[in-house]
């Protein structure tokens, strides 16, 4: 995957480029808005990581200019301003996701991968499958093998989100944002408990666990047999 990082802090940009390369992506960096815009228009990138405050041209205006020219590369906005209204402004300007500083690399990576995947075709199949687990988004039926699993509405949405991003790490914050629509950090890790409940419903009694905890990052649903 080719990723462009537009970030004026050279250390942070270098760190991101290096870390993204380590996990197998190709990353370039631009240190100001003008350069970033030119590179984004020029190169073929799968995801753009754009800092909000940039010299020469600020992040939101870079995104605006891109969208105006019909470039729909997914954009992850990075910002030290992490409040609700800032996020809303960022998303309204054409950003696809918003991550406030300081962030952890795993969080950034998880989001970038989800964004890249989103681009590869809107994930709109009505039935999601992971191994022998099947989730029907229309009838709201969930099966594992022959067994029908009954889920609470929120559990259904949680599983749906995980399955939509099967094989990708999904962080706790992403779950909180996308399943519960909360953008704050609950002091206790409430998500873990929801996950273990869900796990009890879909994995318990099966030899092959599907829902995995990725230490220090989050969760992933994956058919480990394959």
């Amino acid at each position, binding site marked *: 995957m080719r990723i462009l990082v537009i970030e004026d802090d050279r250390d942070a940009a270098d760190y991101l480029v290096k870390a993204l390369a380590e996990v197998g992506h190709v990353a370039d960096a631009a240190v100001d808005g003008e350069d970033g815009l030119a590179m984004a228009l020029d190169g073929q990138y799968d995801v753009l990581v754009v800092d909000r405050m940039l010299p020469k041209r600020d992040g939101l205006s870079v995104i605006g200019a891109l969208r105006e020219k019909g470039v729909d590369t997914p954009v992850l906005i990075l910002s030290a301003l992490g409040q*609700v209204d800032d996020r809303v402004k960022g998303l309204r300007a054409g950003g696809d996701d918003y991550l406030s500083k300081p962030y952890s690399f795993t969080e950034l990576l998880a989001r970038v991968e989800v964004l890249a995947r989103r681009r590869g075709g809107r994930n709109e199949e009505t039935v999601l499958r992971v191994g022998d687990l099947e989730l029907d988004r229309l009838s709201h039926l969930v099966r594992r093998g022959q067994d029908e699993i009954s889920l609470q509405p929120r559990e259904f949405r949680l599983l749906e989100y995980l399955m939509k991003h099967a094989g990708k790490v999904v962080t706790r914050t992403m779950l909180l944002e996308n399943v519960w629509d909360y953008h704050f950090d609950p002091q206790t890790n409430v998500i873990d408990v929801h996950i273990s409940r869900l796990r009890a419903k879909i994995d318990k009694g099966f030899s092959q666990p599907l829902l995995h905890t990725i230490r220090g990052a989050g969760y992933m649903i994956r058919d480990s047999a394959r």
Partner: protein
Amino acid sequence: MTALGKLFRTTTFKLTLVYLTVFALFAGFLLGYFALNTRRLIDEQITDTVNAEITGLAEQYRLGGISRLVFVVNARSRRPGSSLYLVTTFKGQPLAGNVTALEPGVLDNPGWTETTYRRLDETEGPDHPEHHALVRVFKLPGDFRLLVGRDLEERERLYRIVLSAGRWSVAIVIVLGLAGGLFVTRRVLRRVDAMTETTRTIMAGDLGERLPIAGSGDEIDRLAENLNQMLERIESLMRGLKEVSDNIAHDLKTPLTRLRNRAEQALRTAKGEGDYRSALERTIEESDALISTFNALLMIARAESGQVRDDMKDFDASEIARDVGELYEPLAEEKGLSLRVEADAPAPVRGNRELVSQALANLVDNAIKYAAPAEQAANGAPAEIVVRALGAGERILLSVADHGPGIPAADRARAVERFVRLERSRSQPGSGLGLSLAAAVARLHGGELMLEDNAPGLKSIIALPRGGPVQTAG
């Protein structure tokens, strides 16, 4: 600036001068009007009297000729307080009367004239200055001249009286006005000076100082009261700010020191990759905790500054109660608590949904943290937490009630302050900002956070006005 110069420059003194001028002019006008009218009245009286006498005397002349006229005039002249009379031949030879030393030419022109004169019974000299008179000269048939007049002494006395009254009243107005003005000005000036003095002290850094209040309830008092209220608010904000920075310094320094020590220790003692790895993992955990403390602080600052006010929408508090309850229910169950939500009726309220959710989440989080089942059992109450949303008059109450140890009444106010973690709770994880954030969010919405006794346990209530915060100007 001299004291006097300062006095003269005050608004009060300038006002005094304006009033003084207006009053003096008014007094002058009044006296002038009075004098003018009186003079006209006197003149009219004189004219009437003189006309009547002339008519009478002309009649005498017509009846008895010059000798009768002379006789009558002489008789009248001798009466005390008499008018002025003079009968002359056409050459000006006096025949009868009581006046002499008229201005030359007076007798030649029939009609009204003002002239100086002397009475016949007076000798010339400084003792008897010349008098003024208003006279009428009448030509009798046979070329005799008849002069009748009245002394103007009365009119002149009136003039003098009016003039002196005028002088006195103007003088009194000026003296009284000036004195009054000075008195009032000095009083005002003294109070303003006192206020200025206090302001200087406050500017120098003593925010505890308050402006003096005379207790008269006048406009200066009201101003001082308002300024004092403003100072009160500023002082509490400053105190809050100072406390925050102190607490931040303390509460961020401690974990930062720990972080540094860990890293240092790992460098010194780690034997292999595994040691380094676990040291680094702990470092990251520690930093995450720091970041979340920091975020909570920013959030509180943000809520308190009122910036989020633009972002308010209508939402249902019951829905928030249900959502937050749902989010925490599994966690509560894991801890052996039952979490119940009572929010059936819609409770519409205006505000920032995200912040209110977070505030309520913090309260639930606290309840789960502190009301462990063991504690609740000790209180002989069921191990449960109840989250409620209900309307009460003009307010919507979002409450979280537990049967845990509660907070002693004396500590409740303190518990809401930033970073305060009552002794018992030191061992629990968390930034100690949960209640402060809830309180800040409540205040942002024009409401309040109340901590009550749930007998036994704690009941924390976020009370929000239904319509959202009252919009302040600007």
